């Protein structure tokens, strides 16, 4: 793999030159993460520079085709890029549901015209997207959604509301599941629609979480007119796109804790906080629990690695997404329970309004096993679809 090593060297040098020092520091607050979009106010010049430099090369979306502004990298090259960024602890230049969720669906289901129009804006952080799936009172039963889009000739007339729309109050566009046929079984009358939130009739209302943050909103649609060109895929075939996207989302949420893990091991942190006796963490029970966690953490990381390698080798079973979502989120909850124990009384401090204290992060993890399909739903999927257990 001489080429790979060369490529790595090039990346390394480029990052060295182009990644500002301040973009290699840990994330302290929400504002340290760049989300882009029409209304984004950069925290500082470095943040802007870093996003723009990366976007220019398409490296905000490394594996997407270059013709739509993506990096055009192979899986191997993309992995090298990730590794080199991790090596210098570079922040992700652009957080984006456009990249993590919508983009892959567009690449697979959208028309050429739609791709040309929407994807480059995502890569360059011009438009901030949010997701409109869940509805009030539907909970995990996604397919029972009621928001309707009526065919009015040249446009759809949209009415209804969505809940758990992440950062809807800060987003420019929303991708939605809407009901376009009420007379068929519930999975069959759903379509996938893109809606500009600047349209008259769209309004949002933030939901405050137990962690003090308000990453989610309720979003209302009142006689919103949506051009027909913004329908993705076929009419009434939106559920397929939704499933594809959910699978993506699950993997992302499942792996999330892991991505943030890097750096000191929990055991090391505990040793510094609590102290040792003959080289062992003084608290026996905590030592045992941390070990159990670290073993699982290692096993989970290796499993992600294996799933990727299997996919590359064409051995993928496609069964991994629910498993990764379930295990990754449960593991992340355990990580934060242990960090709270390591912190002791100190860990209880709430902190200032915007301060991302440990206790707030801990509370936030409780949502991991609910959002993107609850743990119970993942277990159902594994039991029924993978293991083939009867209904």
């Amino acid at each position, binding site marked *: 793999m001489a080429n790979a090593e060369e490529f790595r060297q090039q990346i390394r040098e480029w990052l060295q030159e182009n990644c500002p020092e301040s973009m290699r520091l840990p994330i302290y607050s929400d504002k340290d993460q760049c989300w882009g979009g029409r209304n984004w106010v950069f925290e500082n010049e470095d943040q802007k520079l870093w996003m723009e430099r990366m976007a220019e090369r398409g490296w905000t979306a490394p594996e997407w085709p270059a013709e739509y502004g993506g990096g055009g990298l192979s899986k191997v090259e993309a992995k090298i890029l990730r590794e080199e960024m991790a090596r210098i602890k570079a922040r992700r230049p652009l957080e984006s549901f456009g990249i993590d969720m919508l983009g892959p669906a567009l690449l697979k289901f959208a028309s050429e015209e739609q791709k040309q129009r929407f994807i480059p804006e995502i890569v360059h952080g011009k438009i901030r997207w949010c997701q409109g799936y*869940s509805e009030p009172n539907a*909970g*995990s*039963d996604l397919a*029972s959604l009621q928001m309707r889009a009526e065919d009015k000739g040249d446009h759809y007339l949209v009415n209804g509301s969505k*809940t*758990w729309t992440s950062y809807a109050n800060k987003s420019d566009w929303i991708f939605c599941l809407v009901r376009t046929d009420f007379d068929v079984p519930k999975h069959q009358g759903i379509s996938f629609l893109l809606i500009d939130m600047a349209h008259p009739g769209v309004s949002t209302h933030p*939901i*405050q*979480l*137990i962690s*003090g943050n308000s990453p989610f909103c309720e979003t209302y649609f009142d006689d919103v007119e949506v051009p027909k060109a913004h329908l993705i895929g076929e009419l009434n075939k939106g559920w397929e796109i939704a499933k594809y996207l959910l699978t993506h989302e699950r993997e992302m949420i499942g792996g999330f804790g892991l991505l943030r893990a890097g750096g000191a091991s929990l055991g090391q942190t505990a040793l510094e*906080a*609590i102290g040792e006796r003959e080289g062992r963490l003084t*608290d*026996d*029970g*905590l030592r045992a629990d941390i070990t159990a966690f670290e073993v699982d953490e290692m096993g989970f990381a290796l499993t992600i690695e294996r799933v990727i390698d299997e996919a590359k080798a064409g051995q993928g079973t496609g069964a991994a997404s629910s498993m990764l979502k379930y295990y990754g989120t449960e593991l992340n*909850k355990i990580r934060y*329970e242990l960090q*709270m*124990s390591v*912190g*002791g*009384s*100190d*860990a*209880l*401090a*709430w902190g200032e309004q915007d301060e991302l204290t440990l*206790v707030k992060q*801990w*509370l936030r993890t*409780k*949502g991991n*096993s*609910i*959002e993107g399909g*609850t*743990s*119970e739903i993942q*277990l159902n999927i594994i039991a029924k679809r993978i293991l083939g257990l009867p209904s």
Partner: protein
Amino acid sequence: MALVLNEEQQLLKDSAKTFLQECSPVENLRKLRDAGERWSTELWTDMAEMGWAGIVVPEAYDGLEFGYVGAGLLVEECGRTLANSPLTSSALVCSSLVSGLGDEEQKQAILPAVASGASILTLAVNEASRPALDATALTATADGDGFVLNGDKAHVIDGMIAHKLLVVARTSGEAGEQDGLSLFMVDRESGGLTFTAVLNTDNHEVANIRFDSVRVGQDALLGEAGNCRPELERALDIGAACAAAELFGIAQESFERTIQYLKERKQFGVLVGSFQALQHRAALLFCELNLCKSMVLKALQAVEENSADRSLLVSAAKIKCGNTAKLAVNEAVQMHGGIGMTDEFDIGFFMKRAAAARQEYGDEYYHSNRFAQLRGY
């Protein structure tokens, strides 16, 4: 003692429940928090009027002398509605210290005021994020006819509202040694004290307190110098048993609210409570709560009787109730789904208070280690 409540205890529990649900429902916590307040003096006044502040204080000092089992029941009910008051810290932990260590004059001076709720005391013992009596570094040096205190205390429960502090200080030996600890009563207005408030996740405020050459008289010393340990350990066991009782109340209430939700909420066209996987998890939690109930009662009885296995029983109860409360609030949020994650909904308050109460008077790791040591392994 039989492991059942007697009639008076049951009556007390029932009336406490009624009172708290009326006068201090969970929404009061929300109101306090949204107003930037931490506790309600009105509630404390009401509690004191019912005699709660003097529930374990001897009748000779204007208390009810009702005992720790009854006291624990009050705390358990406070756990159910998340009512914040200095009941445990002042009326139970500190009053026991004054009763146990104080001389007649000190008791006369302090206990009636504590029993009436007029005077709030708190124990300043921890100096770091986890309890470690031996590690006490704050010193009290004899000086003329009194003492001078220097050092720091951390995470002092109700430290921002207490009128007087009972301070664990080292009168001899070095940090790390078992012997040499003494107990002093220090007025919050004394010179040389600096209070820093820390707001915790449960909307309780604790204090970090700096002692910078704080001068106290000879009469500030409770009991003999270097001799407070047995009473101090008893008081900490009282605190831990009460924290266990509170956690038991939190766990029960979270559990019952969740069961209710499971019976009402529909998903995929059926009641969520009909899903067998959730039923089994609920049933397991029911079993754990049953163990908690027995263990809290036994621990309180052991405190009351000061029996030989008091510390063992208290540690066991604190471990079991801490773990069960943790499981109960986690299951509550998970089984409520998205709504459980919203601030608008009350269940999150139980999760937050449980986290704090688990730390108070030692978490499950601390007590597991103590339990094993007491069992000799």
